[in-house]
C-alpha cells in the first residue's frame, strides 16, 4: 500500500494543486480590489472554491496513467482487492493535495483578510472536508478511466457531488469567522466525509472493473 502511494507521487502533480490554490488566493484580491471588508466576507467561499478546484485539477491523472501503462490491468489480477487499490490511491491523492492545501490555507487566508476567529475553523473544515474531495474524486476518476479526454467528463461528474462538501465547508468557515456557532456545518461535513470514505471505494472499484472489460 505504501508503494502505491509512492507510485502515485512519482507520477507527479504534487506542486500543481498547491500552486493553483496560491494563484487563486493571490489573484482574487487583485481582481476584487483592496476593500478589506468585502474580502473578509468572501474569503471563506474563495478559499473553499480554490481548494476544490485545486483538487479537481490533479484528479484525471489518478487512474488514467495506470490505465495507459497497463498497471491497472496487472493490479486487477493481483491478490490485493481493487477496493484497497482505490483507497490507497485516494489516500495518496489526499496526502499530495488535500493535506498541503490545508496546511497552506491559513497563510493564504491572510491575503484574503479572513477575520481572526475564522482561522481555526478554516483549518478544521479543510482537514475534515478535503478527504471527501479526494474520495469522491477517485470515484469520478474510476468512472472515466477508459474514456479518452475524460478530464472534461470527470469535472462534470464530480462537481455536483462536490457541492454539499463546498456548502458545509464554506459555511463552517464563514460562521466561524463571524463569531457564530459553526459546529453544526462542521459535523455535517464530517458526516459527508465519513460516508464517502466508507462507501465510495467499493463503487469506484466496481466502476474500474467494468471499465477494464
Amino acid at each position, binding site marked *: 500500500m505504501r508503494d502505491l502511494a509512492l507510485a502515485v507521487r512519482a*507520477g507527479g502533480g504534487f506542486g500543481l494543486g498547491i500552486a493553483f490554490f496560491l494563484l487563486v488566493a493571490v489573484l482574487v484580491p487583485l481582481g476584487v480590489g483592496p476593500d478589506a471588508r468585502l474580502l473578509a466576507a468572501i474569503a471563506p467561499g474563495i478559499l473553499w472554491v480554490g481548494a476544490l478546484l485545486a483538487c479537481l485539477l490533479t484528479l484525471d491523472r489518478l487512474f488514467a496513467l495506470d490505465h495507459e*501503462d*497497463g*498497471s491497472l*490491468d*496487472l493490479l*486487477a*489480477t*493481483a491478490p490485493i482487492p481493487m477496493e484497497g487499490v482505490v483507497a490507497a490511491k485516494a489516500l495518496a491523492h489526499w496526502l499530495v493535495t488535500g493535506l498541503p492545501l490545508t496546511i497552506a490555507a491559513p497563510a493564504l487566508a491572510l491575503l484574503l483578510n479572513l477575520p481572526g476567529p475564522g482561522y481555526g475553523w478554516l483549518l478544521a473544515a479543510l482537514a475534515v472536508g478535503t478527504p471527501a474531495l479526494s474520495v469522491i474524486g477517485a470515484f469520478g476518476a474510476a468512472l472515466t478511466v477508459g474514456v479518452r479526454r475524460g478530464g472534461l467528463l470527470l469535472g462534470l461528474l464530480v462537481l455536483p457531488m462536490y457541492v454539499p462538501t463546498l456548502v458545509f465547508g464554506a459555511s463552517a468557515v464563514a460562521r466561524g469567522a463571524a463569531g457564530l456557532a459553526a459546529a453544526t456545518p462542521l459535523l455535517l461535513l464530517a458526516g459527508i466525509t465519513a460516508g464517502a470514505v466508507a462507501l465510495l471505494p467499493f463503487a469506484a472499484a466496481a466502476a474500474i472493473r467494468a471499465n477494464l472489460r
Partner: protein
Amino acid sequence: MVLTVTDLSCTRGGIPVLEGVGFTLAPGSALMLTGPNGIGKTTLLRTLAGLQPPLRGSVSAPPDSLAYAGHADGVKSALTVRENLAFWAAVHGRRLDEAALGPLRLAPLADRLAGELSAGQRRRLGLARLLVAGRRIWLLDEPTVSLDAASVGDFAALVTAHLAAGGSALVASHVAMGLAGAAVLDLLPFRARAPVEDFEVAFG
C-alpha cells in the same frame, strides 16, 4: 495447477469474437495461440486472466495462480528498474529476490530509471515481473515484441525453466519462440460467426 477451459465464448466491445474454445493446460506444458490479427488472442487471454467475464463457458484454475503479461508493461518511468520490481513483488506479498534480475540481464540496469530504458529493455523489465509475481500459470500476450534475437533466446530459456519447474505457459505470438515441445492451438476454427450474418440469413 491445471488450467481448464471449457466451451468458452468471449466478446470484445460487446461483439462475440471467439466461441467454443476448449483446452487443458497441464503443469510443465506450454501452448502457443496462433491466428491472424483480430482473431481474439488478446481477448481470450484477458478473459482467462479474469479482466472480463466470458459470454459463455467456464475457466477453471486454482485461485491466484495466473500471471498476465499484456501489451503494456505496467512499468513506472519515474521509478528505477529495481523499484519497479520491488513494487510488484510487494503487491504480490513477496520480497524482491535479486535473482529475478538475472535471467533477462537486468542486473546492470537495476539502478537506472525505467523511463530511460529502450523499448526492448522495458519489455524485459515487464517480463521479469513474472518472476517476482510467483504465479504458476503464465498468460503471455506477444511477449517477444521489441526484443532482439538474444533476448528472445533468454526469454525462451526462462519459460523453459519455468515449465521444467512445474509451471505452465499460454503464449499468444506470431513468432516461433523456439519452445521445445509446445503444442499449438490455432484459433481460426473458433472464430465466432458474425451475428449480423445470422440476422441476414434469418430475415433476408
